[in-house]
Structures are given as structure tokens and as C-alpha cells.
């Protein structure tokens, strides 16, 4: 079943001449983790804003969880989608962590009793319940994003969209957020769309779509996408570490395998190379 279907989408920003999307199509399956990669300005964020009804297309059709997106259904569609944005500091409204997570539920008119339960569950889910009475400003970036994620989980969406949500985090914070997403996806079968420049994040997805100037230029499993070193560089993306190492090894006159290798795969390959001596 398709969780999201974008059909013949046409969109440009007002006062601009160039179309961001001109007859764009994309399907996302239920329970899938899709990573969308592409350079700044390739249309990634515009696309998810269209899906969430924050922007309106000139023409075309967007269907989310069986609901066709129209001005009348926009709130139903939004109730299916939880968004986490890049800058953790721009996403807080509550005086403390608990209030902040409760805010979205209050807006959705969830009864107080249920609200309290959901807030606690969501904060426990992201490992932040012990910070319930803390001021958001005092938290680290990773902790803030976990709270933002709790705010999303509490609303029980079917889809979580991460718009570069880990790009400002330190390595530890990034890992913590990705682990939670991983569980939400694999255990609770939430559909995940992550917009990212981070190759490690993209490699955790089941499917990667590469956007360039509002077009899907590649749509494949991560390993396949990452093996095209030159292609990635051409569209402004950074190849994974193992591919960059290959490049340097070639310069040293070492013959390397063509297929994409993970870090572990690369170590294994080198080990064999050394054993053959």
C-alpha cells in the first residue's frame, strides 16, 4: 500500500519564474524508510512542505494515507504527519519539556487525562522523561531534537518527516536520534522520510531518492546509490567514507573493487588483500 502518492505535481514559488517541480511523481510505501538526498536548492524541503500542505501546488495530486490533499482535508492530512526540522531552537513553545510535548496535544483537543499519559509515554520513548521539568534552553542539541521527536510521537502520526533533523547535532546526539527513528520504523512500522546530507543517515534507509532540480535522478537501495562516486560528487553530495578512501587508494596505485563496500566490508577486503601477500 502506498502511504504517500505524489502525482503530476507542478509547483513554483510566487514571484519566481522557474518551476521547482514540473510534472513530478513519487510514491512512498507504508512502513518504508525513504531518504531524500540532494544539494541545497534541489527541492527536498519544498517537496515535504507540499506533502504537509504548508505549500499549495499549482496543479497535481497529493494523497496521504488514502486522503487526497485539498484545502478542506489539510488538517486531516497533517494529523497523519509529524515533522521535525533542522534547528532544535526554533521548535520550542513550552516553558518546560513536558509542557512543550503537551502543546501539540492541547491543540488537537486531546482530553487532559489522556494527554498526561501520552506525554509521559512519548518522553519515555525518547529517553527524556527524567528531563520533564527542565527548561528546553538548557538541553543539548540532541536532547532538544529528542524532545521535538517526542512532541511528534505523542500525536501518533503514521508518517515522520525529518528535515535535516540531525544536521546540527554532535555525533552522539545524531546517533541517539537515529536509533529512535530506527525503532519507530522497524518496530512500530511508522513510515519515515528523512531529508539529509548525511550519508550515514541515508544508508540506514531502505530506499534513497536523489533529487536534482526538482527531478528524481536516482531511486534505488543505498548501496547502489553510493557506488556511483562520480555521480554523487557531480550533484554536490559527499560520497561515503569508504568510497573516498577507495579514491585515495587508487591514487596510491592500489586496485580497488568496483562495488560499494561499507566500512566493515572495506576492512574485510583490505584484510584479504594483506593476507594474499
Amino acid at each position, binding site marked *: 500500500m502506498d502511504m504517500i502518492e505524489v502525482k503530476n505535481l507542478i509547483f513554483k514559488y510566487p514571484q519566481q519564474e522557474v518551476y521547482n517541480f514540473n510534472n513530478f511523481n513519487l510514491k512512498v510505501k507504508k512502513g518504508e524508510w525513504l531518504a531524500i538526498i540532494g*544539494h*541545497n536548492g534541489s527541492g527536498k524541503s519544498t517537496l515535504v512542505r507540499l506533502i504537509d500542505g504548508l505549500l499549495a501546488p499549482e496543479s497535481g495530486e497529493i494523497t496521504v494515507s488514502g486522503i487526497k490533499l485539498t484545502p478542506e482535508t489539510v488538517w486531516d492530512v497533517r494529523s497523519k504527519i509529524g515533522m521535525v526540522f533542522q534547528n532544535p531552537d526554533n521548535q520550542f513553545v513550552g516553558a518546560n519539556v513536558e509542557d512543550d510535548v503537551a502543546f501539540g496535544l492541547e491543540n488537537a483537543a486531546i482530553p487532559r487525562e489522556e494527554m498526561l499519559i501520552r506525554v509521559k509515554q512519548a518522553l519515555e520513548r525518547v529517553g527524556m522523561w527524567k528531563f520533564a521539568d527542565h527548561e528546553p534552553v538548557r538541553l543539548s542539541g540532541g536532547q532538544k531534537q529528542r524532545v521535538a521527536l517526542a512532541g511528534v510521537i505523542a500525536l501518533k502520526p503514521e508518517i515522520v518527516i525529518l528535515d535535516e533533523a540531525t544536521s546540527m547535532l*554532535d555525533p552522539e546526539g545524531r546517533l541517539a536520534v537515529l536509533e529512535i527513528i530506527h525503532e519507530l520504523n522497524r518496530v512500530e512500522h511508522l513510515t519515515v522520510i528523512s531529508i539529509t546530507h548525511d550519508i550515514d543517515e541515508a544508508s540506514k534507509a531502505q530506499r534513497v531518492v536523489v533529487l536534482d532540480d526538482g527531478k528524481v535522478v536516482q531511486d534505488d537501495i543505498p548501496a547502489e546509490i553510493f557506488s556511483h562516486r562520480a555521480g554523487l560528487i557531480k550533484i554536490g553530495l*559527499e560520497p561515503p567514507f569508504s568510497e573516498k*578512501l577507495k*579514491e585515495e587508494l587508487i591514487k596510491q596505485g592500489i586496485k580497488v573493487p568496483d562495488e560499494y563496500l561499507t566500512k566493515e566490508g572495506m*576492512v574485510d577486503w583490505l584484510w584479504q588483500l594483506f593476507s594474499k*601477500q
Partner: protein
Amino acid sequence: MAMAIIFKTVNYTYQPDTPFEQQALDNISVEIPTGSYTALIGHTGSGKSTFLQHLNGLLRPTSGEILIGEQIITTETKNKELGELRKHVGIVFQFPEAQLFEETVIKDIAFAPKNFGKTEAEAEIIARKMARQVGLGEELLTKSPFELSGGQMRRVAIAGILAMEPEVLVLDEPTAGLDPKGRLEMMRMFKRLKEEQNLTVVLVTHQMDDVANYADNVIVLEEGKLIANGTPSEIFSQPDWLVEHHLALPKAGEFALAFEKKTGYKFSTLPLTEVSLARQIASLLHEGGGDVHHG
């Protein structure tokens, strides 16, 4: 003018004598040498931003003193004594494009020099030069900064800081939110600016690869304390210590450790960049493990 920055037993406490009292800098003594490329690393809450704000007197130490060039900053220092200092130390804060406000790119860049007493014409000459330095084309100068892409807006903001002609350039996660190509271009630009203009650069970053690739001096803060200061190879030489302090190795270093563990080979020094990793692997291969330990 030599612009070494020296912290001597600097303490800084937020909201002292209240229930919210928080010591953000704890007895810090450290030097940022003139002409160095110093990386400042540590977790959120480690005191990095507080440290940064002391570099041009936005905050003054609660106790201790800071020497910047010929100026001494203590808790007694008055704001009006800091005007001169602020011309010498330019800070590019996170998402600096949020602070653009003028009608055109050129006016935005010229704002600081005008503010610091240059005539309109002088300020514009400086602004044009800085726009070139950061790679903004002539055709963009008369546009509104808000018509530009995120990466271009950030360049405008950085040019605005450079237009003050500072000797020390402080960068707070300057590449956050840029795509990999934009990030690489920006990091190369800082390196070039540093060399061409003889700047001292202080870079706050979470990217250990940037520390390995660009910095020659590293300051590590944790809970307001200085826990290490040295070259990147010194800082990254003890993986166990890094883990203990929740810090990461550059990717090449991590790979090198995994390689050592699997193969039993040992690198003479832990490679921190792809280039040095590939070179060391190649020389191990050519030597057939020659002068290295093989266990």
C-alpha cells in the same frame, strides 16, 4: 599588531547569587596563538559559546583575565573600552544569515565599516573587495540579500564580518545546514582567507574531520573546564580518552582502528585523514609489513 589571545584562570558564572547560578567557565587558562587555526570542541553545555563570547568582550569574566593583543579584559572592563577590540575580533555566529537586514547585499556588507567610521565610499570599496573574497559575483551586489540562496546569504554575512578587517576570525559552526559541496567550498574559503589575510581563526565545530583537515591547535572543553589542548594528532592519539569524554575520532581514524583490530597491523601514527590513511595502507602493503609490528 600581534593578536594572541590568552585566558588566565578565567571563571564565568551565569546569574550569580540566584538559584539558577551556573558556572559556565571554570578556571580556564589557555592560549590561542597568533596565526593559529584553533578548533574549539566539546558538547553543547561544555561552555563553548560562553568561551566564544569572551573573545570580543560580549561577556566579561566573573574573575580572572583575558589578554587580547594589548588589551586586558577583566570583570571591571567597561563596554566603551571594548570598541577597539571588536574591530579586531570578528565573530560569525551560527546561522549568521538571520542577521542580514539591509536593502542590498553591498549595503549589508558595508554596514560594519561605516559603523566603525569609514566614509560611504571607503566602506563600499571594502565591501566590494570582501564580496569578491567570499566568492559573491558582481551581479549579486545590488540584489536584496533575501533573494539569495541560503549558502549565498551566509557568504554575505561572512563578508560583513570580514569588512571589519578583523585579525581574529571566530566561526561558530559556520557550515551547519549547508550541503556537502557548500560545506567544502566554505571550509576551503576560510583556509584561503586565513592564509591571504594572515588571520587567526577560531572554529567551533562538531565535525572531527574538519578538525583533522584544517586545525593546527585544538581546545577541548567539558562542563566549563579545559580538559585538553594540543595539536589534532595529540588530541586524537588516545581513542579510549575520546570515548570516555564522548568525543569522536575523524572517520579516517575510526577506520584505521577497525583496520588494526582486524588485521593485527599497527600504524606508526594513527592516520586522521583519508590521504594519510591511504598512504599508510599503501606503504604497509609495499613493505609487506616490513618495519611494522604484525601480531
